[in-house]
C-alpha cells in the first residue's frame, strides 16, 4: 500500500462531474453565439486528382449564402501541421485523400449551407490512387513532392549485433502481421466556433480542441494575426483519444478565415459521416518479424521491418514510427534488436495520434510472436513471458539500463494471473477445447510504455502553468493542458493543492484559455500527469520561496527550512496556518504567484550502426492485460468473458479516475480487437463505414461486467508527484490479449494474423483449421 497524503491517493469527485450530469456542461455545438454563420464543407470526390475548377455560381445564388471560401481565401500560409507542415486546409493543386476539403459554404443557417453545398460542382483530373503503403514505396506516383519515394519517415532502433544473435539461436520464429485503420470514435463529433473581436484583429476560438497552442500557431500563420490575438478556449470536449488535433485544427483554420473575412461569428460542426470521412485514424501497420531464442525460449534477438500507412499527410506518422520501433519489442530481455519502422504516404485517410500511438499494433504482432515461441518451446504463454521479462537493473531492448525505476512488469503479470486464475484455467481450457465446439482461450499481452514524447522530442517536451494565491488564500490555477474527459483537471488541481501544501477546496482550476495560461505543449502522449506535475511543482516551489522571504521580512528572522503541508506552514519551530502565511505575504505587498516550467531532461539516444540506440524515453510505465474469451467455432463469434489489466502508473493521483482510464482503455482495445472496421476500399482509398450503424463499437452488452482494473503503484522518482503515463497503457494491450486468447481457443498460436478478429475472419479461420483436422 502506498501512503495517501491529504490529497493524493483519495478517490476525488471530478471538478466537472456535476455540470456534466446536469446537462449544463457546454460542448462546442452547445455554444449559441450571436447570429453565427454556419459552414458546410464540400469534400473531394477522388482520393487523388488534380483540382481543375470549382463552380460556385449556383451556390452563391442561394438566399442566405454569404460566401464560398477556398484556398484562394487563405491570406498567408496554406498548410498546417504540428511537426511537418504539409496539410492543406483547403485543397490546393490536387486532392490527396477523400476527406480533403475543396471549399466551405457559409450560410445564415445550417440548412442553407447544407443545401447550397450540394450545388457546387468541381472539375477534376483523376490521378492513380495509392492505397497500399508497401507498393507506394518507390512508386512513380508521388503524393508529396518532398518525399520522392513516398517514405516520409524511417526510425531504426538498434542494439547489439542482430545477425550474430540470430545465427546463434536454437529456435527461430518468423511471421507477418497486419492491422487496420481504427476510428477514435469520440461520441462528440468535432465542432469549432469562432468569434471575431470588433475592437481589433482578434479571434477567439472555442470547441473540441485538444491542442490549443498548436492551433494558435497555425491560425496565426494562416491569417497573419499575432499569437497573442488568437485566443483559444477549448469547450468541454466529448472524448478525443488523440483525435481532436489536426482535424479540429484544419476546421478551426477554415472557420477563422471565414470569420476574419466576414467579421461574423462562425459555427462549424461535422456530422458523424463527415467526422469519419475527414478525421485521421489509427495507423494500419504491416510487420515482418523474425525472433531468435535459445532452446529454453530465452530471446536472443529480434528483427522487425514495419511499415505504417501515413495516408495523405504526414501528421504524427514519424512519431508513431518512433514509438513502434522503440516500444514494439515490449518489456523483454534480448541481446540484440533491429527494429525498423517506416512511415509511407498513400492516398488513404491520413493517420495520426490515437491512444497508444503505434504501440497497440506492435504489441499485437509481438505478443502473437511470443505465443508462437511458447508453442515451439512447449511451455505456456505465461511461462515464456516469465522467462523473458525485464527486472530491476536490466537493459531494455533499445539499450536503456533500468536502474532508476521499479521494473514491475512481473508483478503486473502475477496480479493479473491471480485475478483471472490463469494457471488452472489454462490447463482446464486446453482439455475442454478437445471436446467442445465452443472453445475457450486465455491471452496475455505485456507492454512497457515510454513516458511522454521521448527522445524524439528532446528539447521541446515542455509544460507550463500559472498559480496565483489570492489575498484570501484561495488559489487560482491555470494550465493549458486540456481536459478531454480523462479527469486531468481534477488531477492537476489535486497536485496543485499537494504542491502548495493547502487543502483541495482552496484550488480553483480555470478552464484552459491561451490568454490566461502560459504556453504549454499539448495534452498528448499521456504526458499530462508527469509534465503538468513538473510545472506545478516548479510554480509551488517558487511561491514557497516568495512566502519564505515575506515571512523573513515580516518576522525579521532568517528561515533555513520551511515546510508547507496540509494547511500548515512550519519554520523555526513555529507552525502557522496557510492562510496566515499568505496574509503575511500580502501585508508587505509581495505576490504569491508564479509561472512553473518543466522540461523533460534530455536522454541519451545516439546513432549506432545506421540506426539509433540507448535511452528512447526518460521513464516507463509497465502493464499487463489478460483476456478470457469463448469462441463459437460454428459462427466465428467471440465473446469476451473477462479482461484484467494491471498498470503501474507510478502513483494513482486520483485512483477512481485512474481505474476509469483502465476500464475505458480495455474496452477501446476490445473494439480494435474484434469489431471495428472502417471497410477501407483498396481500389479508391475510400472508407465505407462512416457511422455507428456499420462501424461497430463495443456496447454495454458486449462488455464483461467482470472486468478488473488493477492499480499496481510504485511512485516514480522521476516524476514530481510520482505519477506517470496511464491513458495509453490502459488501452495498448487489450486488443492483443484478446487476439492471443482467440488464437489459443483456435488451438494455434499466431493463427489469425490481421486485426480485427471479426466474425468473418474467425469463421474462415475455423473452416481452414477444420481442413487441418481441428
Amino acid at each position, binding site marked *: 500500500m502506498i501512503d495517501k497524503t491529504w490529497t493524493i491517493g483519495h478517490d476525488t*469527485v*471530478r471538478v*466537472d*462531474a*456535476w*455540470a*456534466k*450530469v*446536469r*446537462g*449544463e*456542461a*457546454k*460542448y462546442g*455545438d*452547445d455554444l*449559441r453565439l450571436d447570429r453565427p454563420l454556419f459552414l458546410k464543407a464540400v469534400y473531394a470526390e477522388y482520393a487523388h486528382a488534380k483540382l481543375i475548377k470549382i463552380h460556385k455560381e449556383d451556390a452563391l445564388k442561394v438566399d442566405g449564402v454569404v460566401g464560398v471560401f477556398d484556398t484562394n481565401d487563405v491570406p498567408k500560409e496554406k498548410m498546417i501541421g504540428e511537426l511537418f507542415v504539409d496539410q492543406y486546409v483547403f485543397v490546393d493543386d490536387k486532392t490527396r485523400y477523400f476527406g480533403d476539403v475543396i471549399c466551405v459554404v457559409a450560410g445564415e443557417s445550417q440548412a442553407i449551407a447544407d443545401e447550397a453545398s450540394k450545388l457546387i460542382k468541381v472539375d477534376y483530373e483523376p490521378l492513380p490512387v495509392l492505397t497500399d503503403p508497401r507498393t507506394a514505396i518507390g512508386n512513380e506516383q508521388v503524393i508529396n513532392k518532398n518525399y520522392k519515394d513516398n517514405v516520409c519517415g524511417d526510425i531504426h532502433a538498434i542494439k547489439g549485433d542482430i545477425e550474430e544473435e540470430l545465427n546463434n539461436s536454437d529456435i527461430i520464429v518468423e511471421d507477418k502481421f497486419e492491422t487496420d485503420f481504427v476510428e*477514435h*470514435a*469520440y*461520441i*462528440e*463529433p468535432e465542432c469549432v466556433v469562432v468569434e471575431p473581436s470588433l475592437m481589433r484583429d482578434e479571434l477567439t476560438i472555442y470547441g473540441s480542441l485538444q491542442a490549443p497552442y498548436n492551433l494558435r500557431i497555425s491560425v496565426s500563420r494562416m491569417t497573419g494575426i499575432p499569437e497573442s490575438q488568437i485566443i483559444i478556449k477549448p469547450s*468541454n*470536449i*466529448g*472524448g*478525443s*483519444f488523440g483525435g481532436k488535433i489536426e482535424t479540429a485544427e484544419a476546421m478551426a483554420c477554415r472557420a477563422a478565415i471565414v470569420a476574419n473575412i466576414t467579421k461574423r461569428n462562425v459555427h462549424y460542426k461535422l*456530422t*458523424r459521416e463527415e467526422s469519419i470521412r475527414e478525421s485521421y485514424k489509427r495507423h494500419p501497420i504491416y510487420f515482418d518479424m523474425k525472433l531468435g531464442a535459445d532452446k529454453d525460449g530465452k530471446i536472443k534477438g529480434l528483427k522487425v521491418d514495419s511499415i505504417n500507412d501515413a495516408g495523405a499527410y504526414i501528421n504524427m506518422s514519424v512519431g508513431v514510427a518512433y514509438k513502434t520501433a522503440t516500444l514494439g519489442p515490449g518489456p523483454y530481455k534480448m541481446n540484440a534488436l533491429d527494429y525498423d519502422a517506416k512511415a509511407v504516404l498513400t492516398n488513404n485517410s491520413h493517420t495520426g495520434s490515437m491512444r497508444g500511438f503505434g504501440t497497440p499494433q506492435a504489441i499485437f504482432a509481438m505478443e502473437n510472436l511470443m505465443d508462437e515461441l511458447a508453442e515451439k518451446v512447449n511451455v505456456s504463454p505465461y511461462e515464456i513471458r516469465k522467462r523473458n521479462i525485464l527486472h530491476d537493473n536490466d537493459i531494455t531492448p533499445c539499450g536503456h539500463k533500468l536502474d532508476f525505476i521499479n521494473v514491475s512488469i512481473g508483478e503486473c503479470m502475477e496480479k493479473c494471473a491471480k485475478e483471472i486464475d490463469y494457471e488452472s484455467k489454462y490447463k482446464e481450457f486446453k482439455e475442454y477445447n478437445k471436446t467442445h465446439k465452443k472453445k475457450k482461450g486465455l491471452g496475455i499481452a505485456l507492454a512497457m510504455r515510454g513516458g511522454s514524447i521521448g527522445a524524439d522530442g528532446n528539447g521541446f517536451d515542455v509544460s507550463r502553468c500559472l498559480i496565483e494565491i489570492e489575498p484570501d488564500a484561495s488559489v487560482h490555477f491555470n494550465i493549458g493542458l486540456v481536459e*478531454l*474527459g*480523462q*479527469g486531468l483537471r481534477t488531477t492537476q488541481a489535486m497536485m496543485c493543492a499537494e504542491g502548495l501544501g493547502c487543502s483541495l477546496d482552496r484550488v480553483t482550476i480555470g478552464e484552459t484559455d491561451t490568454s490566461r495560461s502560459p504556453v504549454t505543449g499539448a495534452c498528448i502522449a499521456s504526458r499530462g500527469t508527469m509534465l503538468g506535475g513538473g510545472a506545478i511543482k516548479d510554480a509551488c516551489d517558487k511561491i514557497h520561496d516568495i512566502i519564505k522571504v515575506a515571512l523573513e521580512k515580516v518576522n525579521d528572522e532568517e528561515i533555513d527550512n520551511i515546510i508547507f503541508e496540509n494547511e500548515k506552514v512550519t519554520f523555526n519551530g513555529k507552525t502557522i496556518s496557510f492562510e496566515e502565511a499568505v496574509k503575511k505575504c500580502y501585508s508587505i505587498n509581495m505576490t504569491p504567484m508564479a509561472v512553473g516550467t518543466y522540461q523533460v531532461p534530455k536522454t541519451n539516444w545516439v546513432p549506432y550502426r545506421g540506426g539509433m540506440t540507448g535511452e528512447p524515453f526518460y521513464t516507463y510505465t509497465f502493464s499487463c492485460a489478460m483476456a478470457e474469451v469463448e469462441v463459437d467455432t460454428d459462427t466465428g463469434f467471440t465473446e469476451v468473458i473477462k479482461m484484467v489489466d494491471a498498470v503501474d502508473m507510478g502513483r494513482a493521483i486520483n485512483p*477512481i*479516475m485512474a*481505474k*476509469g482510464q*483502465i*476500464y*475505458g*482503455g*480495455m*474496452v*477501446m482495445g476490445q473494439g480494435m480487437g474484434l469489431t471495428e472496421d472502417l471497410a477501407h476500399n483498396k481500389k479508391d482509398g475510400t472508407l465505407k463505414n462512416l*457511422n*455507428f*450503424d456499420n462501424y461497430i*463499437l*463495443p*456496447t*454495454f*452488452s458486449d*462488455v464483461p*461486467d467482470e*472486468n478488473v482494473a488493477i492499480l499496481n503503484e510504485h511512485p516514480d522518482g522521476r516524476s514530481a508527484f510520482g505519477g506517470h503515463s496511464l491513458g495509453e497503457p490502459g488501452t495498448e494491450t487489450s486488443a492483443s490479449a484478446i487476439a492471443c486468447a482467440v488464437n489459443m481457443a483456435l488451438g494455434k498460436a499466431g493463427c489469425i494474423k490481421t486485426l480485427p478478429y471479426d466474425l468473418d475472419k474467425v469463421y474462415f479461420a475455423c473452416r481452414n483449421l477444420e481442413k487441418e483436422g481441428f
Partner: protein
Amino acid sequence: MKIDFTLNNKHITLDTEPTKRLVDAIRDDLSLTGTKIGCEVGECGACTVVIDGEAVTSCLVLVGQVQGKNVLTIEGLSELEIGRILQKCFVENGAVQCGFCTPGMLMSAYALLNKNQNPSKEEIKEAMSGNLCRCTGYVPILNSIEKAKDELKTLSKK
C-alpha cells in the same frame, strides 16, 4: 404549427415545423443543449430523452409526434428523486469522463429504474445497450446504476 406537450413537467406550446427532428427542437428552439447529438441515426444514444416513460432517441422522432405527450430531458432530471439519486451515483462512482454520453445514459437509466426498481445486471445491460460510451468501458456506469438501485431500495423500505 403549434405543438402542445409537457416538457420537464411544464406544459408548453411550441410554434415550429412539425417535421423538425425532436432533438433539433429541443436544442435549437428550446435552447436545451443538455441533449447531445452523436450520430443522427439512432445508434449512439447521446440524444436519448424520455417520452411517456420510455427512453427514445430524439434524433429519430419528429417534434410533431410528441403532441400531447410528456417529454423529459436531462434538464428536468434533477427535479425527480430517481434522477437525483442517479446523478449522485454517477458522480461518485466514476461513471462520468468526457460526459458527452452522460445525459443520454442518465435518461436511459432513469427510464429503466422508473419502470423497474429492481433490475438484474442483465436487465440493466440490456436497457443501456443503445447508449454508446467511448470513455468509461461501461463498468463504472453499471456500478453506478446498481448503487442507485440499492439506494432506491433503502429509500422505499423507510
